[in-house]
């Protein structure tokens, strides 16, 4: 299987893609997903993350098959 990654809003535009699929190999945390997706970029200040539609932290665990999302501060309502 693999890790499904999604990007939203301004981050989606800066990444130039709405998402991608990464091999789960060597990925154990949300931070590791970010590092692999960006080839080592630092975690942007204020960036939020979710695993399987629930908010998560950089150190939160990620498993094979998970959906991991990165996005800027929300502005709904």
């Amino acid at each position, binding site marked *: 299987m693999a890790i499904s990654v999604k990007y939203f809003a301004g981050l989606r535009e800066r990444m130039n893609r709405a998402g991608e699929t990464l091999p789960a190999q060597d990925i154990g945390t949300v931070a590791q997903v970010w590092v692999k997706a960006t080839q080592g970029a630092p975690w942007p200040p204020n960036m939020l993350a979710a695993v399987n*539609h*629930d908010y998560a932290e950089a150190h939160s665990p990620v498993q094979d098959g998970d959906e991991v999302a990165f996005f800027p501060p929300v502005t709904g309502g």
Partner: protein
Amino acid sequence: MSVQLRAAPFDPWQELARYQANLDQAGKFGATACFVGTLRDMNQGDAVSAMTLEHYPGMTEKYLEKISAEAARRWDILDSLIIHRYGPLAPNDSIVLIAVWAAHRAAAFDACRYLIEELKTRAPFWKKEKLEHSTRWVEHNTPAVY
């Protein structure tokens, strides 16, 4: 308890009339508190001609259902309704409707306020404004108290 995402414009007062007619709580609720968020034609000093609301399908519904359940756990309420637009919007369009029905007003008000604050702070929506010559992502929401 209902959470609805809408791609098309909605009339909040018609939605309230329809939802309440089907509520099956006639005579039980003494208090209804509601909030409607509407797209203004001006933000941070700039004229806004249109807006696009992006969201995270799946996570949005899950989050709004989670806070609706939390409101029902914290306060003695009978029902709640959240409707939120996504996609392209025009000024004066309703963005969000929140309504809470309860026996007494304190629970209705407090739960309604809780829902809009949680929604604004954590629900995965992002606003992109169309200005006269450019577009911009809204960086953050107006704080709860100012």
